[in-house]
């Protein structure tokens, strides 16, 4: 699977949600990172054929998403950020319905439903009404429906948002497991989601593509710029104004600060090995750019 995005622009009236984005996505799991409102969901919805673009071109394999949406949908599994199911149906009925819509023959459909339910660990609750599912179960059912038909392109939009930490880790592992030979595009504002298994990553900031490459490449963006500094609590305010602080930890009367700066802060900083979130912060540029959530 090969996705080629060329000069993609999307306007909502006078507001430009995507601005001349060009990007190439190959097989494997690809992370799309950006703060809320960066344009991730718009890009995902365009890729999922849900929205027309204003200008530019998006091709999934050789199919243009604007002009050949039906061809793209044949190859697509999509899990939106916010979705629901028919509450009175159970998981099997719901998946059977979606499987029919995906043109999966009856016998094959039955087999696939069992497989995906197993995959997302919902076999035991398969006959329960979907309306009674917890948030995490619903998310897993969401990924199960996307997996039906064995799509070569899987788009998951903010799949871990709203999940508790345990569910989030479980979900992240699930995504890593299913990515296999297909292309999985994962949109998130949680850096840790990307870190686990993405082979490629792109960062969007206010509709513009500010980075595209590998996770290591993104980390390299911060190499030599990440410092650890321990300052008295009274100086914290001054430090925060002066530097781009990534994280802080209070230890007694001192504050341990992880910051991003080209030079050793105050000559007292200890250089640190950068992580993905450091790279992300680095490509966002100026101080005060939108913050990204960083979770363990």
């Amino acid at each position, binding site marked *: 699977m090969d996705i080629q995005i060329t000069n993609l622009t999307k306007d909502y009236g006078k507001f430009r949600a995507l601005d001349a984005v060009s990007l190439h996505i190959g097989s494997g799991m690809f992370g799309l990172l950006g703060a809320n409102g960066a344009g991730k969901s718009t890009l995902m919805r365009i890729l999922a054929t*849900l929205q027309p673009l204003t200008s530019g071109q998006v091709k999934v394999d050789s199919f243009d998403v*604007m002009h050949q949406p*039906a061809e793209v949908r044949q190859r697509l599994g*999509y*899990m*939106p950020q916010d979705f629901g199911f028919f509450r009175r149906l159970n998981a099997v009925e719901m998946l059977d319905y979606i499987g029919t*819509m995906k*043109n999966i*023959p009856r016998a094959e459909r039955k087999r696939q439903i069992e497989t995906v339910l197993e995959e997302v660990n919902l076999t035991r609750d398969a006959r329960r009404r979907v309306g009674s599912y917890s948030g995490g179960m619903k998310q897993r059912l969401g990924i199960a429906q996307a997996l039906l038909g064995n799509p070569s392109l899987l788009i998951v939009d903010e799949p871990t948002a709203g999940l508790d930490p345990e569910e989030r880790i479980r979900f992240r592992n699930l995504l890593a497991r299913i990515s296999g030979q297909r292309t999985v595009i994962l949109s998130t504002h949680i850096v840790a989601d990307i870190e686990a298994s993405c082979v490629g990553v792109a960062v969007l900031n206010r509709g513009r593509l500010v980075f595209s490459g590998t996770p290591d490449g993104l980390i390299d963006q911060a190499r030599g710029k990440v410092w650890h500094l321990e300052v008295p609590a009274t100086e914290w305010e001054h430090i925060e104004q002066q530097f781009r602080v990534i994280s802080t930890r209070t230890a007694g009367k001192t504050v341990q600060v992880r910051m991003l700066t080209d030079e050793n802060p105050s000559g007292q900083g200890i250089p640190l090995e950068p992580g993905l979130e450091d790279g992300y912060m680095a490509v966002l540029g100026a101080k005060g750019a939108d913050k990204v959530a960083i979770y363990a």
Partner: protein
Amino acid sequence: MRNQNNPPARYGAAFRLELRLICLHWSYALLHLLWALVLFSSVVGRSGGTAQWAFETGLLFVVRTLISGVALFLAANTFTRSSNIRFAAIEDTLPTGFDIWVGRWSACLVAVLAFAIEPAIIASLRGPFASFASGIIPFIFKLSIIFAFATALAWLLASLLGSRRWLFLVIAGVWVGLIIIPTFFQMSRVPFVGIFNLAGNGSPLNYTEVFGTMPQGLQPFWFHLFYAALLGVLLMAVLSRLQARRLHRVSRQVVAIGAAALVIALLALGGYSANVFTARAQEDYARAIAKRHETDFVINAPTPEAINRYDLTVDLTNVSTPRFTVEFVVTNRGETPLANPRLTLHHDLTITESSERYTRDSDFVTLTPDQPLAPGETQTIKLTYSGSLWLLDLFGGIPSANTFSNTEGVRLPYISCWYPVAGWVIPNEMYGSTRVIGSPAQITMKVIGAPGMTFASNLPATGEQTFAAQSAQWVSLVGSPRMVKASVGNAILYTAQFDQPELTAFVEKYYTSALAYIQRLIPDVPIKGLIVFGMERAPLPFSNTLIDGWMIVRTNRQWASYIDFGDANQRAYFISDLLEPLFPKSSESAVTEAPGGNGIILGYGANSGVMEGIANFIAVYMQANGDSASMSQAIVGLKTLDEARIAANPPLANPALTYKALTLQSLAEIYAVGGDAAIIRTLRQVRQRQPELVAQPSEKVGVWLREASNVP
């Protein structure tokens, strides 16, 4: 791996799922329960039409009115369901066509059409089965068009407004608008307003079992075509919005089909308007001609010319263009010579041969004999004429034919002047002119052709298709393949095939039995029997008449079952039908104005009060079989009933009730003393001196009657 596209499977899955989501919801079951309660409590046992009649009139109207609202709401809910539960984003990325939308829409339509089950059960209870079988398919078809339209309209609104909460408020407004607003404007001069009444069937409530829906002409066709075409427009509009959403473009085919459907809808609107326009044009034309002759034309003024014999031959070999041959005798009953006897013959009938010279201006024919007709002189004239008749009435702004002749039926009412009428009158004016009823004449009528039709006339039948009367003032002819003629005692009943069993029982129970008592108590009027027209809009005058000893009565099956016959007061209603021709003055001065003449009607007056009193006396007499003690008891019961009615509804206290009560009481007292003979004497006096009686103040009525009875 790419799976093979399978639209039928997707359609089936979407259809089944939607049907399940709608029908297995508690609210759907509740709606059916409420619907059944509403229908069964308001319709069952209230009206006596057959199944087909119910399907074509009242039930159709009720179902369309109420269930179109249900259709709008269910459809809006169906369309927005995916969005409401946030499934739309997944759904729109599935490799489907519009099959799933079609599946959902058809499921919604089926769920709505299921509300036809309750009315179908009601209709089936009416029977007979043959009537049910012939009515059910058109009923479902007509409902399908309207419900499909309503569901498509809801879909378009939902697609335009999205799944907002106030969508349903808009839907409610649209429903009220479609049902109520056109009704307000229906009587207006705008010819197409009626078509916008979603619930209306584009026609008045015709008695379709005799003539089918033929009197409505093309009106139902235009009505249904309009909504079917609009359905096309709406579906294409919805499809174009779905295409824009799913394919990011709108196909030319969809636009072209939508445009074509719109053109068809406009054509249907034009056709519908043309029908209404034609009806109005007919009315206006007749009035315009009358106005042109207004110096000669005085409505209802006596005319010097009279026709006292007709020999009519109605040739229906070509039933769509009947050919008439009429030989008639014109008499100058004036006191001066009559140079130009005047006749009225409907202008759609073209005179092809005439034994006398004439000039004609539309309906008005003027004979121009060589010599004027001397006073009392007669002249025999023979006319041959033919033409296609299709004359319309406007009922609630909607046209319906009252005069026609085609393979489905023949209806030639006296008011349409299908035979020459003495003097100039405005034809086809139900309320405007009574002069169509001419002087008594000897009339024979022979109908040729139209095999398979049964014919009825106010003239007593002398054969299958021949009719004659020594003295009749008007002639109507009705023919239909669905009509039957049946003998019920000394009554001849003409009615729809399906109505025959019920009306036969009805006539037997309430007309022929009452007639026997009338014949006993009013023996000086020789009554041979009844000719009963069991049809909704029988082409008869408003008052029943007596022709050659045959009482011409109109009734219909609805009357038979609307009324609870246990009450002598109500039974008397039918007896007064039969008394009408025996007391010809009874229909005059029927209402009384409030003192001061400010136009406020107080109620029915002395005349109708006296007639009701006599009818009630005969009803009580029948009920008690002439037993005086039982009659007194029954009269007390009736009095109590009347008092209770007045207490519940004070405006009922009108002078007629006083006259009625006093007449009834007096007749009962007279009977108690003098028996049948005294009643016979009294009623003879009432017939002979009716104006004198009704001029009496109410407190003198008893005295007057006792004096007339000759009993002490």
